[in-house]
C-alpha cells in the first residue's frame, strides 16, 4: 500500500520535478544563511522517500495501539466485571482469584519483559511482529483497564443496583442496562488517558525490532548520520497523532455527558 503510494508520488514527480526543485531551494537558502538545517530536514524526510518510513511507522504504531486497545477493553471489562460481581455476590471466588492474580502479575512486571517473553518464547514461531506487539500491549493494557473500570463500577451508587433488582430485573439485566453504562461513563477520562498512554508506550516494540514510529528515527540516523531531525520529526508526528486522538475522545466523552445536570455543556 505504502510502496504503491511511493511509486505513485515518484511517477508524478518524474513529470513535475518538485523534489529537485525543493532540493535546489533548500540548498540555496542554506548556503545564503550559512545553515545546514534545511538540508538536514530534507535528508531526513524527502531524500530516498524517507517520508514513507514515517508513514509506515505511524500505520504500525496505530495498528498495534488500536488492536491492543480493543483487546485491553474487552478483557479488562470482563476482568473487572468478575471482580465486581464477586465483591457484590461472593459467588465467583475462583474466577475472581484468577482475575486478581492476572492483574497483579501484569501490573507488577515491566512491559518490556512481557514483550520479550511473548516475542521470543511464546510466539517465537510467528513472524507477524505487529500482531505479537498488539497482543502484548492488549494483555498489558487489560490489567490497567480492569482497574479503571473496576473503579468505575465502584463509583456507581449501590442504590442503582438495588433499584434495578427491586423492580425484578435480574443481575445481568441490571448490569447491562444500568450499571455498565454508568460505570463506563465514569471511567471514560482515565480510560482515554490509558489509550493515549498506549499509543506512546507501544514505542517499546522497537526493542524487539518491530518497525513502529519510535524505531524509524534510528533507521534514518544510521543512513544520514544526523541525529536531531528524525527524532524531532517523529516526536511531532506522535504529538499530532495524540492530539487527533484527544479530539476524537473528547467528542465521545461529550456524547456520554448528556445525562449530566447541565447536559454536558461547558
Amino acid at each position: 500500500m505504502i510502496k504503491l503510494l511511493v511509486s505513485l508520488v515518484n511517477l508524478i514527480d518524474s513529470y513535475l520535478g518538485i523534489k529537485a526543485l525543493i532540493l535546489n531551494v533548500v540548498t540555496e537558502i542554506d548556503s545564503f544563511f550559512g545553515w545546514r538545517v534545511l538540508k538536514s530536514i530534507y535528508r531526513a524526510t524527502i531524500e530516498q522517500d524517507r517520508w514513507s518510513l514515517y508513514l509506515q511507522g505511524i500505520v504500525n504504531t496505530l495498528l498495534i495501539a488500536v488492536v491492543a486497545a480493543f483487546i485491553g477493553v474487552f478483557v479488562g471489562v470482563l476482568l473487572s466485571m468478575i471482580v465486581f460481581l464477586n465483591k457484590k455476590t461472593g459467588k465467583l471466588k475462583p474466577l475472581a482469584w484468577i482475575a486478581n492474580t492476572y492483574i497483579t502479575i501484569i501490573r507488577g512486571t515491566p512491559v518490556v519483559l512481557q514483550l520479550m517473553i511473548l516475542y521470543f518464547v511464546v510466539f517465537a514461531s510467528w513472524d507477524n511482529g505487529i500482531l505479537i506487539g498488539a497482543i502484548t500491549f492488549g494483555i498489558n493494557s487489560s490489567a490497567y483497564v480492569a482497574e479503571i473500570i473496576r473503579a468505575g463500577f465502584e463509583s456507581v451508587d449501590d442504590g442503582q443496583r438495588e433499584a434495578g433488582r427491586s423492580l425484578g430485573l435480574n443481575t445481568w439485566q441490571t448490569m447491562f442496562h444500568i450499571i455498565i453504562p454508568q460505570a463506563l461513563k465514569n471511567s471514560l477520562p482515565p480510560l482515554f488517558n490509558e489509550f493515549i498512554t498506549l499509543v506512546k508506550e507501544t514505542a517499546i516494540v522497537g526493542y524487539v525490532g518491530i518497525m513502529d514510529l519510535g524505531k524509524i528515527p534510528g533507521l534514518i540516523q544510521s543512513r544520514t548520520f544526523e541525529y536531531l531531525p528524525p527524532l524531532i520529526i517523529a516526536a511531532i508526528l506522535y504529538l499530532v497523532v495524540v492530539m487527533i486522538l484527544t479530539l476524537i475522545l473528547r467528542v465521545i466523552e461529550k456524547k456520554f455527558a448528556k445525562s449530566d445536570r447541565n447536559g454536558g455543556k461547558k
Partner: protein
Amino acid sequence: MAEINKNEQPILSVRGLKKVFGSNVVLKDISTDIYKGEKVVVVGASGSGKSTFLRCLNCLEDPDGGQIIFDEVDIADRKVNINVHRQNMGMVFQQFNLFNNKTVLKNIMLAPYIIYKKRKKKAYKAEVKADEKALKEAILAGDREKASQITERIEKRPKFNYKAECRQRALELLRRIGLEDKAKVYPSTLSGGQKQRVAIVRALAMNPKVMLFDEPTSALDPEMVGEVLNLIKEVADEGMTMVIVTHEMGFAREVGTRVIFMDEGVIAEEGTPAEIFDNPQNPRTKQFLNAVL
C-alpha cells in the same frame, strides 16, 4: 378505604425472620402477617432494624433465618427465583435511586419493557397463529361469514409494538403526577420531590401487589415532603397494600391501618395508629413517642 379481610390468606407472611450483620443481630425472630389492602407503618428509633426489616421483605438483604411467604412461596428460600416475586413488590428508596443514565420516561418504562417483552411477543405470536388456524378451518368448512370476520380481525390487528405500549403507560403515570413535560429530561435536573414521585410511579409501572417504602421523605427538603406524602396517600386510597418505614408520625397516623413499633430487632408493640400513638403500653414506645412527638 377498602375493607381489610383478615379471614383471607395474608398477602405477605413473615415467620421468625432473623438477620445478622457479622456479630450484630439486627432482627431477632420477627413474625407478622400483612393482609391485602393494609397499610402497615413501621416506626422506631434508628438502629432498631426497621429498614433492614423492610429490605428483607423483598430479599434485598438475604434473611439469615425464618420465612417470608409471598404468593404462597417462601421467598427467603435462596432456591426461589426472587426476580419473579420482586416484580410484584414495588420498592421506593430514601435516596430515590432513579437510574441516572436514563431519561425520566425510560426510568419508568425500562423494567416493564425488559421483563415482559419476550412474554408479550410470544402471546402476540400465539394469537396470530390461532387466528390463522381458525381462518383455515373456517375456509375448509365453507363458513364465509366467520372467515370474513377473522380476516377482518387479522387486518385490524396492530403491529406488535410493546415498547409503544410501555411508553404510553409511562406517560399516563407521568401525567398523573403532573410531570409529563419532564419525560425527556434526565433525573439529575429534577428536584428531590419530583425524583421521589417519579420513583413511586416507576414502582407502580410494574403493577405490584405490595409497595415497600423505605423512609420515602427522609432525604427531602421540608417543603417537598407534602407532595410526596400526598402521592403515597393517593396510592394508598386506591387500595394498594403498603409497608412504610417513616419518621412522619402525622402521616403514619393518617394513612396507616396498623403501626408496628420496632425496638432492638423485635416488634415491641403493634396496633392501630390510635392505640399506639394515644395509648402506648410498652415503656420503650412511650419513651420513643415522647421524644419524637
